[in-house]
Structure formats: C-alpha cells, structure tokens
C-alpha cells in the first residue's frame, strides 16, 4: 500500500502540531503541550531578547518570565492572533521594561560615570581562532550599534532582520500600523548604519 500526498500531510500534521493547536491543548490542561511550546520557542526568543537587552543573565530571566506569563495567562490567548506574535509581544514588552529599569538605575547610579564596555558572550562556532576572533569583533560591533538604537527602532529591526517576521506580523506584535512599521524599519536601518560608522571610527 502506498501513501498519497494527503496521507503524508496528515501524518506530518499529527507529528508536528501547530503552535495554535498546542496552545489550545494547553488551555485544556495539557502540560505536555506547554513543554513543546517552550522547546519550540526557547532558543529563538532567547536570541531575540539577548539582542534586545545585550546581557545573557537578564535575557534568561526575561525568557523565564515570558514563559511564566504564558503559563499563568494561557486563557488570555485568543485564536484570532498567531501564537508567535502573541509570545513575541510578551517578550518584547518585558525586554522594553528591563531597558527602562536600567535607564532609571543608571540615572541614579554612580557607576554610570565609571561604566566599562560590556562583554558580549557569544557562542563558539568551532572555527579557527583568528576567524573566531574576527567574528566576535564583528558581532560585538553590530550588537553595540543595535544597543545604541532606541527600543522602538531596536524592536522592529530585530523582529524583521533577525527573527524574519513579515511587516504585517510586526505590526501585530508592536501594535502599530503597517505603514509606521515600514517607515520605522527604514529609519532603524539608516540609524544603525550611522551608529556602526561611529563605532568603527572609535575602534580605528
């Protein structure tokens, strides 16, 4: 007996449920569905949050808080929105809150005047030492340029260029009109370029 395309598709569906199916199952009390969602979104969200706040420990805390909110507020999710946009909205808002807290802390902290440059812990890709060193420098410089962006520009550029969301999805996540998303991404790209040039000038 041979399987038709329809059969293979249905098997694939049963093997890999969609995010929306998983959250629906979780809303009905299936804890395993929650674990699957965590497994699916843990790393992409971690990368997004890390690029947003620039610190590994804070990123992991925010990631935990994101999933905790998902766990506690599962019934607030309605199927009219995609699950991915919902979870990225939560993570983005928490990351923005963390940046606001830091800004407030820096205003009143003496360390503000003695601030050293941040170290970015980037994963080892197992390449040769000199290539690795160059890659770290490049990534670090880009991360610094991203860090210099204001949160509203940072959020859209990360969602677009790193997470690969469409403009429509970004519009839902950030809750701004589509036209504003496009112009914001455009301005963010130009600003990022200016920031990077300044950083390169400082380095040289």
């Amino acid at each position, binding site marked *: 007996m041979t399987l038709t395309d329809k059969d293979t598709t249905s098997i694939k569906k049963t093997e890999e449920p969609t995010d929306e199916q998983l959250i629906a199952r979780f809303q009905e009390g299936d804890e395993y569905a929650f674990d699957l969602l965590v497994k699916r979104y843990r790393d992409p969200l971690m990368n997004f949050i890390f690029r947003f706040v620039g610190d590994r420990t804070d990123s992991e805390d925010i990631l935990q808080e994101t999933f905790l909110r998902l766990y506690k507020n599962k019934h607030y999710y309605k199927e009219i929105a995609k699950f991915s946009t919902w979870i990225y909205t939560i993570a983005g808002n928490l990351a923005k809150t963390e940046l606001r807290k830091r800004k407030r802390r820096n205003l009143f902290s003496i360390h503000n005047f003695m601030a050293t440059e941040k170290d970015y*812990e980037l994963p080892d890709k197992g390449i040769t030492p000199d290539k690795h060193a160059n890659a770290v420098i490049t990534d670090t410089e880009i991360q610094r340029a991203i860090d210099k962006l204001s949160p509203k520009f940072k959020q859209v550029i990360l969602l677009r260029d790193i997470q690969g969301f469409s403009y429509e999805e970004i519009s839902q996540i950030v809750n701004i009109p589509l036209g504003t998303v496009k112009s914001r991404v*455009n301005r963010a790209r*130009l600003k990022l370029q200016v920031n990077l040039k300044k950083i390169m000038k400082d380095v040289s």
Partner: protein
Amino acid sequence: MISCDKTKALLTDYLDGTLEPNLKKEVDQHLDSDPECNKIFTESAALQRQIKNLQVLTASTDFDINLRNKIIQSNTLPDRQYSLNKKGLSLAFSGTVLMAALYMFIFTDIGNQTAVDEGIMPSSTIGSGNPGHKLQIPADQPKQAGLEKENVADSLSRVPEVIDDSKIHLAGEEQK
C-alpha cells in the same frame, strides 16, 4: 528625478525588492548619479546580511529545570502575596487612624476647653489658629491686669435690662 530624502525613505522597499518597477528605475537612476546615496544603500544591504548572519545565542541547558522551578514557586506565591497585602492594609489603616488622632489633637481645641472654663483663655480665641495660647498677666502689672479682668466681667454684667426707644436713632431719622 527623485530627491535624496525620498530615495532614502525607499531604502527598505528597495532592499526587500518590493518597489514598483517604475519607482525602482527612478531609484536606480538616482543611485547612479549620487555616490553618497549609493554608498548608503550598498552598506545598508551589507549590514542587513551581517545582521541576518549574527551568531545565534541559545538558552542555557538547565533553562527548562529552572523554568519548572519558577512555575512551582509562583503557584505558592498568590497566598503569600495575599497575606502581605492584608498586613499592608492593616498597617495603612492604623497609620491613618493615628494621623487623624494627631491632627485632631494639634489643630483642634480639644483640651483647651478647661482653659476657657477657667477664664484664662477668652472664648473668642477658639479656632483662632493659636490654640495653645493662654492670656498671660505680666508680674509687674498685677493691678492693671486685675482691672482688665474686672472690665471684661463688667461689660458682660452691664447690659441694660430695659432698652429706651428714644435713645435709639435709626439712619436718616432726625434727632428729637
């Protein structure tokens, strides 16, 4: 031909390849004639590629265990929060009552009634904003002070019982 600013505003659409053919042609023409804009577009395209290829950071290996622990902890948190809120509320209530009592004591005349009764504080000063003030009699003028006290008593006792109408003159009325 389109301006630099308009060209820059179309950067994202240009890089995404979503510009209409006619508009793309105009942007290309501008980029050919303006090396500055051309440089911005080229560098931005390169930067976009670099950002897409940034190394991906992953969550730590014990993330799932830590998350599970946090969820378990949070399940016991509401009760603790409730009791904390309860304590906070009772403290706030006690504080308010204390403040109100203090306010009453300082800014009202409770406790000054004896001073009025004893005649050392004229009743007209009640609520005058100087509640603790007592009428002080200087030691070197005891007689004068005594007179003043007597005069106050006189002014109260010398109200005539029968009023003579002929002594009352209304405004505009001629005197007889």
